[in-house]
């Protein structure tokens, strides 16, 4: 339990949110990537977040205030990235170079509107974590001046 932990927590939040922003960028960039088969088509990617429990980070270390067995938590972690299994868009474009023998091409299942909303959400969350880190920094700087005239 110390101010230093807040840096770790806010840092983990920033890492997670920037990874989320990364997947959004990748999804939007590939929104119109056509392909001739369902297997090779790009699918929307989404990160899966989960909370880190303190006991995993430093087992047995319990500080002031929190009783043994209780967990204050220690930030957020990206468990992995999953590909959306929503239906791909099949369009009839016989003159497309990637068209299959029936004249169809497959477009990714990326919902651009959803991705934009995700982008706003993750950039706001990122900002929030930066704010937290700044506040923790000024709290720490204050404690260093304790006892000074």
């Amino acid at each position: 339990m110390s101010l230093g932990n807040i840096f770790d927590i806010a840092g983990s939040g920033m890492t997670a949110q920037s990874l989320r922003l990364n997947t959004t960028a990748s999804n939007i960039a590939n929104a119109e990537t056509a392909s001739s088969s369902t297997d090779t088509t790009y699918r929307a990617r989404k990160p899966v977040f989960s909370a880190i429990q303190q006991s995993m980070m430093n087992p047995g270390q319990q500080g002031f205030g929190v009783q043994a067995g209780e967990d204050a938590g220690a930030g957020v972690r990206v468990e992995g990235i999953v590909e959306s299994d929503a239906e791909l868009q099949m369009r009839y474009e016989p003159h497309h170079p990637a068209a299959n023998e029936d004249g169809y091409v497959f477009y990714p299942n990326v919902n651009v509107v959803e991705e934009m909303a995700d982008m706003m959400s993750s950039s706001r969350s990122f900002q929030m974590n930066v704010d937290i880190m700044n506040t923790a920094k000024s709290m720490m700087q204050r404690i260093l001046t304790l006892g000074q005239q």
Partner: protein
Amino acid sequence: MAITFDRALGIHQHALQARVQRAEILANNLANADTPGFKARDVDFQAMMQKAQDSLSGISMEKTHAGHMDTAAGGGDSDLLYRVPDQPSVDGNTVDAQAEQTRFMRNAMDYQASFQFLNSKFTGLTKALKGE
């Protein structure tokens, strides 16, 4: 009468420590604002201060048996509680980012107040030592 830091600083050192702990818990809530199924947590600050106050004033339970639990360990133990959400969310997350951020800012301000109190205690001690 001996001057001890514990006696001279009073409740403020415990208050500052409790503020730091609460800041950490609130920061964790905010970091997990987008984690599905995460439940926002907080501490009962009043209960923590009450326990610290009790341990300072010496009013605490006496242990007469080895199996008795320590009621005043560390000056202010308190359980981590779960916040009651204002509105349900589809993914089971109970963090209200705006409310948590407000609490975090307020906690930071209260931290500064506690810091000022503690700092002026030290200033007073220094003055007494110098005798100016």
